[in-house]
């Protein structure tokens, strides 16, 4: 019997295995804990939290698409105060590793959120969701431009103190994702999360109007996996030393392995959990088996292996 060191690292933090939830696809963990102990996963990445409670968008908020789905939740959530009071203590009680995702409408809001997280114990990293409309700049998404991305990351870094690893979550809807990655790496992030959803739209051919109340939505699921693999591959090629949390359509161990070979140090499972609450656990078990079959003793040797190949 072969053994596998399945642990992975992001910045200073070690995770027992590389399978995480994806932000917004596991709420704060309670619902999935009905199906498996949260400690079985490398980490729970929480839904992106903002300073204030948010109602989110009107329904319909989702549309199924071929091998994918659109969502437009609009960052519904309880706000950072309620989150820190209720969700974090519960997660800590479960002994789950926690990565907190934050989102803001202004550079300042990210700063405020980071300051609130600073003193909180039981958090392993902060994931900065910069795919949010910047209300100060005609609603353009921060992640679309290097300068706004950097402004957010610097605000987070200044406010969060030196402890927590910072992961910047990038949008694939850009002309050059390597350029954005380069900018946030220079601004001091410890890792990247790739990829957020693609901007998409479905029109209901019966009502002849956009299907989602919010008109456009984020495309996720297996349909986007080739885009995720490409983004991860490109960024890992340019910055082989920066850990990447890979995601985008991973629904089984083969898919997870594909993203790892492209350069991911960890895998977030999003949409797949909607189709199957046990998806993340199955993926973890399948990935470990596939790695062992391929002769890996250490998960970390597989990261970015497609760039090197068999020597």
């Amino acid at each position: 019997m072969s053994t596998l060191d399945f642990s992975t690292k992001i910045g200073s933090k070690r995770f027992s295995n590389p399978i995480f939830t994806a932000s917004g696809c596991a709420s704060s963990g309670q619902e999935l804990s009905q199906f498996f102990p949260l400690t079985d996963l490398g980490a729970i990445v929480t839904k992106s939290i903002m300073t204030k409670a948010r109602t989110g968008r009107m329904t319909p908020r989702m549309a199924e698409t071929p091998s994918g789905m659109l969502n437009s939740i609009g960052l519904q959530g309880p706000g950072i105060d309620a989150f820190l009071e209720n969700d974090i203590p519960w997660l800590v009680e479960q002994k789950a590793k926690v990565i907190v995702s934050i989102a803001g409408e202004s550079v300042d809001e990210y700063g405020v959120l980071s300051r609130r997280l600073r003193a909180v114990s039981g958090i392993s990293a902060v994931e900065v969701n910069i795919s949010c409309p910047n209300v100060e700049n005609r609603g353009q998404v921060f992640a679309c431009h290097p300068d706004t991305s950097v402004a957010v990351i610097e605000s987070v870094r200044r406010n969060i103190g030196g402890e927590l690893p910072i992961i910047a979550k990038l949008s694939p809807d850009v002309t050059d994702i390597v350029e954005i990655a380069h900018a946030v790496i220079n601004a001091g992030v410890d890792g990247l999360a790739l990829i957020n959803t693609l901007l998409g739209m479905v029109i209901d051919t019966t009502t002849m109007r956009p299907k989602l109340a919010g008109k456009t939505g984020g495309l996720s699921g297996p349909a986007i996996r080739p885009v995720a693999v490409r983004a991860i591959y490109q960024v890992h090629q340019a910055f082989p030393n920066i850990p990447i949390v890979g995601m985008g359509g991973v629904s089984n161990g083969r898919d997870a392995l594909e993203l790892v070979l492209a350069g991911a140090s960890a895998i977030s499972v999003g949409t797949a959990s909607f189709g199957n609450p046990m998806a993340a656990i199955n993926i973890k078990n399948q990935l470990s088996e596939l790695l062992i079959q391929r002769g890996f003793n250490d998960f970390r040797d597989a990261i970015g292996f497609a760039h090197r190949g068999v020597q």
Partner: protein
Amino acid sequence: MIPHKINRSATQIMAEVISNKKFGPYHHMVFAVGEMAANIKPGNFVAISVGGEQSSLILRRAFAIYRAIDKGPMGGSIELVIAPHGQGSTWLCSRAVGDFVDLIGPLGTSFGIPTTNANTMLVGGGYGSAPLFALAELLKNRGCRVDMVLGASTANKIFAPLEGKRTVSSLTLTTDDGSAGIHGQISEAIPRLIRELGTEVIYSCGPMGMLAAIAKIAKDFDIAHQCSVEESMACGIGVCMTCVVPIRNGDGVKMVRTCIDGPVMDGSEIIWDRKEVLDAMNI
């Protein structure tokens, strides 16, 4: 906060199709679910994977449970009433006896039962009547009077099996085209019935427009109204936030998940008017 015990008894199983019969425009399907059946309450639903292994349909479909039988000849079983509508339901309806489907249940809230005897009215639209028959039985056993009103666009779309009809004190049918029962929308018939029957609690299940109309009537009569809503669900287990309905929350509005806090909800709490919601969201 200790979360309320979400889907406490939900399990994921491979369930065998043990019967699949056409019933008018619907399919009445029976699945072997073993011990799951014992935990099912009227109003709960199940979520089923559709399309098979290479499917481009990646999300489960939710179905209200028509009946659950705890210890039948095949062990526990559940019965669903399915309208072959789009790709997922059509696939499910074409499953043969002996096929297996990936099924999670029981999910969601169940109908609340009055603590004292009461005159209840159960209103179902289309296949929305399905979960009402188990509820009728339960209410009757608790000593409630149970009047049932079933409506649909046309006669054969009313789902009303014989054995179901037996449990109720009265059964009124309505059809939009007048092909059976009272001619007209179900909601038009209800006010008179409430008055005649002295209804104290309304239970409803059907299209959102029907539920909204009944909510208004219940408010006018100032009687309790529990409705089972049907919003598009991506996950069915509370993690995606797609299935929400707006409820009143002080001056504002709160979006609650119909898969966790529903599908059975207090009809008076829901804000049925979209414009009202949008206005409240902009406060």
